[in-house]
């Protein structure tokens, strides 16, 4: 019964965040536009040679998703801070993890949709040939995005409420995400190249383990960062 109430709270928070984003489309649109812009800049940096672009595609795609995604996380708390809504949110009864899980769901959809668009554009821009193992590639993108969203949502709870939030979030988040980036880029690269060395599987396992470990850890620790 109590747990059912908590699930309702999770749904209410996720719905509220997504509705807010949907009604002010400017936020999502600019985040996507930034992701695409970063891809174009990478194109300039890596030169017009088709083979060079293809080789660097996995890395460029993931960095574009990372840089654009990092903007989404502070936004998610911005809506709570704008008119003092966080004060109200914290005064509702019930456990604190419902706030985290609700925001996690909303941010996953937000970042997921952004990722789909940026990756689609990236595939065209970098002249990527879709490999036959494309379902595995989708799994890699999904697992990588989950890792990004879990830590991003967690660290933004602190960074968004501190001085210097613009610099603090990436400073805390990016080093923590090194395993996600290495695994996601390496696995994407391997799969795009046909995975001749059969190395993508190991990376996928690492991604899954990372996601699981940090999901548990952040769920436990969220109470300490939001309620102070």
């Amino acid at each position, binding site marked *: 019964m109590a747990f059912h109430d908590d699930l309702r709270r999770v749904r209410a928070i996720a719905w509220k965040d997504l509705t807010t984003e949907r009604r002010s489309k400017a936020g999502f649109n600019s985040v996507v536009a930034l992701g695409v812009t970063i891809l174009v800049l990478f194109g300039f940096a890596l030169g017009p040679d088709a083979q060079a672009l293809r080789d660097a595609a996995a890395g460029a795609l993931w960095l574009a998703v990372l840089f654009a995604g990092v903007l989404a996380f502070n936004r998610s708390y911005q809506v709570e801070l704008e008119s003092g809504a966080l004060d109200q949110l914290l005064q509702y009864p019930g456990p604190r993890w419902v706030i985290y899980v609700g925001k996690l769901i909303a941010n996953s959809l937000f970042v997921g949709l952004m990722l789909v668009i940026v990756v689609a554009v990236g595939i065209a821009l970098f002249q990527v040939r879709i490999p036959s193992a494309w379902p595995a590639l989708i799994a890699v993108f999904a697992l990588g995005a989950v890792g990004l969203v879990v830590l991003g949502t*967690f660290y933004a709870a602190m960074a968004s409420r501190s*001085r210097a939030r613009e610099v603090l979030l990436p400073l*805390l988040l990016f*080093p*923590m995400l090194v395993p996600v980036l*290495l695994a996601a880029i390496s696995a994407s690269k391997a799969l795009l190249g046909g995975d001749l060395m059969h190395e993508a599987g190991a990376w996928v396992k690492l991604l899954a383990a990372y996601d699981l470990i*940090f999901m548990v850890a952040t769920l436990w*620790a969220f109470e300490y*960062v939001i309620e102070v």
Partner: protein
Amino acid sequence: MTTVAPTLEAPRAGRWTAFGVVSIALLVATQAFAFVSSPPDENMGQLEKILYVHVPAAWVMFVCFAIVLVYSLLFLWKGREEDDLVAAAAAEAGAVFNGLTLILGMIWGKPAWGVWWVWDARLTSTLVLFLVFVGYLALRAFVEDPQRRGQWSAAVGILGALNVPIVWMSVTWWRTLHQMPSSMQSMAKIYWLGMFANFGAMLLVMAYFIRRRYEAAAVARAAEHAAQAAALGGLD
């Protein structure tokens, strides 16, 4: 979660000065021992002496981050302000040893590989770790409220420590899937003796560093508590 307790006494430094002098003297002695006892390396010559600082510093760095983990957990569990200050002191000491490891690694790398930096698995994961704890210290600098600073940095410290093995694994895979990792050649016993002796001495220096940083932080906090007592005038 408990509130920061308003009882924190300024620690007395006395004995720790002697401790510091002894541990630094011991470190000098173990360095001298390693210098004298170890024959020059076949390939690197006398440059192998760097390893007697580089390797123990790396080990001590891991000890520091383990202390951050333990005291961060303790702080979240018990809410004692002292634990938060110890974790912060250990993070500072850890960052110093971490930086030392990196710089010596680069100095080693120049003659060994001909360049200042290679994306070697050990060196790279040490760098990532350094960035994680730079973030930890930056967060502490940006948050003023002691309770908030304590809880936030404890969370960051715990997650950072949790990430150490994962970062190491991912970076190692990243390297080894492409080429053989650069590792130290199997070493003779005499090298190991010098290594462990220096590690022991450096541990003592680390304890001294942490203690001193803790004292500085605790004195500052005790002064704030004294100001509190004055501000609250006659309360209790």
